[in-house]
């Protein structure tokens, strides 16, 4: 992050407070409303949610078909309603294909299923480079894919949000759905990691 985070941090913090005060004076918003909204937008947003969806798809082939056909409806079945977006599409990693997600224009992202987006996802470096040289970018994350693996990069350039369905790790046949949930990482749901 830039040095703007630390030094003018106090200046920006003052300006934000000043704006809040102004808006309160003008009757547009209250501090209490803001507190509520801040809590609400983060609560319930967690990669554990995406992990649950993945574990269900791994253990229930019919659910997996539904998930890949209509991600929005399928995650709703599990009780996850993404407030901000209208559509979710889930893309499956296979032995031949690896998927990775980006929003080149800003930083769109299925927040409720993945939790707050990491700084790197929002960075100019990631947004500009992953569409052009995904193999090199994934290597920076420690993921080195075989040369014959096809890579598809999904750019959330409109209203659809994307999530990756990672490959199920080997030797997990005896695991319960709950145990499988614990294996799934946020980066695997974005496509910058494998499990």
């Amino acid at each position: 992050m830039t040095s703007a985070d630390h030094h003018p941090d106090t200046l920006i913090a003052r300006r934000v407070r000043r704006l809040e005060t102004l808006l309160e004076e003008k009757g547009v918003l209250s501090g209490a409303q803001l507190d509520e909204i801040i809590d609400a937008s983060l609560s319930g947003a967690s990669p554990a949610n995406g992990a649950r969806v993945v574990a269900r798809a791994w253990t229930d082939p019919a659910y997996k078909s539904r998930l890949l056909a209509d991600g929005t409806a399928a995650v709703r079945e599990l009780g996850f309603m993404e407030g901000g977006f209208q559509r979710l599409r889930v893309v499956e990693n296979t032995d031949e294909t690896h998927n990775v997600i980006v929003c080149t224009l800003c930083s769109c992202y299925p927040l409720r299923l993945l939790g707050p987006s990491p700084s790197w996802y929002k960075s100019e470096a990631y947004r500009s480079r992953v569409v052009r040289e995904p193999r090199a970018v994934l290597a920076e994350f420690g993921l080195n894919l075989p040369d014959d693996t096809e890579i598809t990069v999904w750019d959330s350039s409109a209203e659809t949000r994307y999530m990756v369905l990672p490959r199920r790790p080997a030797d997990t046949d005896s695991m319960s759905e709950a145990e499988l949930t614990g294996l799934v990482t946020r980066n695997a749901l974005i496509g910058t990691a494998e499990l």
Partner: protein
Amino acid sequence: MEPEGHAELADISAQGRGDAPVEQIYAVRFAARDLWGEGDHHVVLDLWESYLEADADDER
């Protein structure tokens, strides 16, 4: 290329007008080579219908 739902055309809605048309959005898959002349991967972009031109030579 596949249909990817409908939404208000962001370019118009960004102007704060209430009259943004709702358009079909398509997920369009490009080969990296066609975009930048290099790369063996593919990129899928979600594009509003009015961003696309009909290609008279194509049969769809």
